[in-house]
């Protein structure tokens, strides 16, 4: 055993930030040559808004993936949360707190269900969360044809649109949530246990970790994050939207952001800071292409290629490291 492996598992700055800096630099150059401006007020604000929505979901997704699980139901949880929040508020400022409470409670309940299916009934996480997603989809499809409810004006004005300089309030919320998740992962018992469970469930159990409890907690936290993203989207859109989660591909994109951020899909390795880098990278590419007025479909092609390429680079480095 080398000395290096005895050191605490400190992670250097994930490579995703290098990629992010390069992308933004090249993007800035290309956009400037094209005669546009990448970093003016409005593009920066919209970039951070996109990042806030996806980021909240992806931070939650990081927790379950670190634990060796996965959540494919987040897209439906987001839609459900927008509806619960907007319908409870129904346009009245007095109902903001109960509405937020209710939306988060419903989301947490879905997370609890996911967690129990994965741990108690030992259903593969992919199938369990896909099945729960289908349950929610049926409810959403049969109950709603279009937008419903009205978000309270105060919430729209604050979480939806208010900003501090160029930074939207929602992005600050993401920073706070990320900070909390980072603290939980690196400074609390729960965090260490979660990474241990994701790394090797058997070893974790034999060392006295209650795997089931840790994983259920991670699933609840993940759904809470998705519920929070739903509340943000409801305050952005002004109403509940039954398809906003699925149309935004939040399930697959959040997993992609986590993996681009350097977290291993198999669990046990990674962190939330990298995930935010992954989210910013995806949002940055989006902003650059918007400035260049690139076709939306072409953007998607590039997105797919970037996701594969980023992970290929990580895999390549991991192989080299293992060989040396």
């Amino acid at each position, binding site marked *: 055993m080398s000395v290096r492996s005895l050191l605490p598992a400190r992670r250097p700055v994930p490579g995703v930030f290098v990629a992010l800096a390069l992308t933004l630099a090249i993007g800035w150059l290309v956009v400037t040559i094209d005669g546009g401006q990448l970093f003016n007020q409005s593009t920066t604000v919209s970039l951070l808004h996109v990042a806030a929505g996806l980021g909240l979901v992806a931070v939650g997704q990081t927790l379950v993936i670190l634990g060796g699980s996965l959540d494919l139901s987040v897209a439906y949880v987001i839609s459900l949360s927008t509806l619960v929040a907007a319908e409870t508020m129904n346009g009245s400022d007095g109902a903001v707190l109960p509405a937020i409470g209710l939306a988060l409670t419903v989301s947490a309940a879905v997370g609890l269900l996911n967690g129990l299916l994965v741990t108690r*009934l*030992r259903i593969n996480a992919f199938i369990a969360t*896909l099945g729960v997603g289908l349950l929610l989809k049926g409810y959403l499809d049969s109950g709603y044809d279009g937008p419903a409810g009205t978000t309270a004006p105060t919430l729209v004005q604050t979480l939806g649109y208010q900003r501090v300089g160029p930074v939207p309030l929602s992005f600050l919320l993401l920073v706070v949530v990320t900070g909390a998740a980072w603290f939980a992962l690196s400074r609390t018992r729960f965090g260490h246990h979660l990474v241990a469970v994701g790394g090797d469930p058997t070893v974790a159990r034999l060392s006295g970790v209650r795997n089931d409890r840790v994983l259920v907690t991670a699933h609840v936290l993940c759904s809470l994050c998705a519920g929070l993203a739903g509340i943000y989207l409801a305050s952005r859109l002004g109403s509940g939207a039954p398809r906003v989660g699925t149309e935004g591909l939040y399930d697959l994109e959040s997993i992609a952001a986590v993996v681009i951020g350097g977290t291993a899909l198999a669990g046990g390795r990674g962190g939330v800071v990298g995930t935010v880098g992954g989210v910013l990278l995806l949002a940055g590419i989006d902003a650059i292409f918007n400035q260049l007025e690139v076709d939306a479909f072409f953007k*998607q092609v590039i997105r797919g290629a970037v996701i594969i390429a980023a*992970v290929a680079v990580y895999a390549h480095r991991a192989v080299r490291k293992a060989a040396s």
Partner: protein
Amino acid sequence: MRTVQPRPLPMRLLRARPGGILPILAILAVLLVLVALRQPDFLAPPSLMSFLGRSAPVILLAAGQYFVIVSGEFDLSVGSLVTAQVVVAARLIDSDPSRTWPVVALLLVGGALVGLVNGLITTRLRVPSFITTLGMFLILVGAVYLWSDGAPKGGLSEEFRRYGRRAFEDVPVLGRVPYALLVLLVLVALAVLLMRSDFGRTLVAVGDNPRTAELSGVRVWRTRTIAFVLSGLAAAVAAILLGGYSGVSFQAGVGLEFGAITAVVLGGVALGGGRGSVVGAMLGALTLELLFALMNFYGVSGALRSTVQGAIILLAVAVSATRNASRQGET
């Protein structure tokens, strides 16, 4: 290792091993009884044959997905591949019958090529297949919209559509035999033969324990890549049948990848590889299709379908998972 006296065949068939097809047969039987109670006409040969023909694309996709899953990987790109193939076929054929066969050949080559790229990226660049095929999904959907400017163009020729929606009529006893059913039967036979061949055994071994397989001299990357190619080919055939049956649309393949994975798991195949049979996977797909038909008969609204589907999948998988767990506890 001690040698075990092989049990007599009937006993071996009855013993519900994990990954065996007995549970899925039981579910299928229950659904058939429910159908018979509600809509006895459905079990009359002609309508049953039509049902099997309609189910052919999904069953083929499940078989393709099985090859990938049993080798320890995922293929999330098949749904988008089907959409892409249908839209490409319509634009290239442009309602000109003489172009039918070249385009069919092109679709098969295209499907195999997409599978090859998925396989090589996954095995050679060591990108997890979940990410590879997710990226491929985004690329294919984006590319096909880009290429057709947001609306499908052209049209399929009657020769092309024939395979998805025509049948040999007036067959004695059976009534009618859809072309799609014949295509399905041939490919099912090929799939079963393939899984009984050396390659099939290697595929399962790779999924069960890639390291052991590697040490025993199997070229794991090649085996897995071939599995992806098979999945791509299955998607191409499914696209030809689906395009024929329901025509051209950007919705042609939406959600099929999750449907196929669900079917495979329902059929007793373990995600992660190494367990389950291709017959089980295809029966899983058939069960899922029968479930949808049943919901129609019982008047379940289209919107609630996914709820029922989700509940049944969770239930079926939970039952088999707890049974496996209790069996492991015994030994």
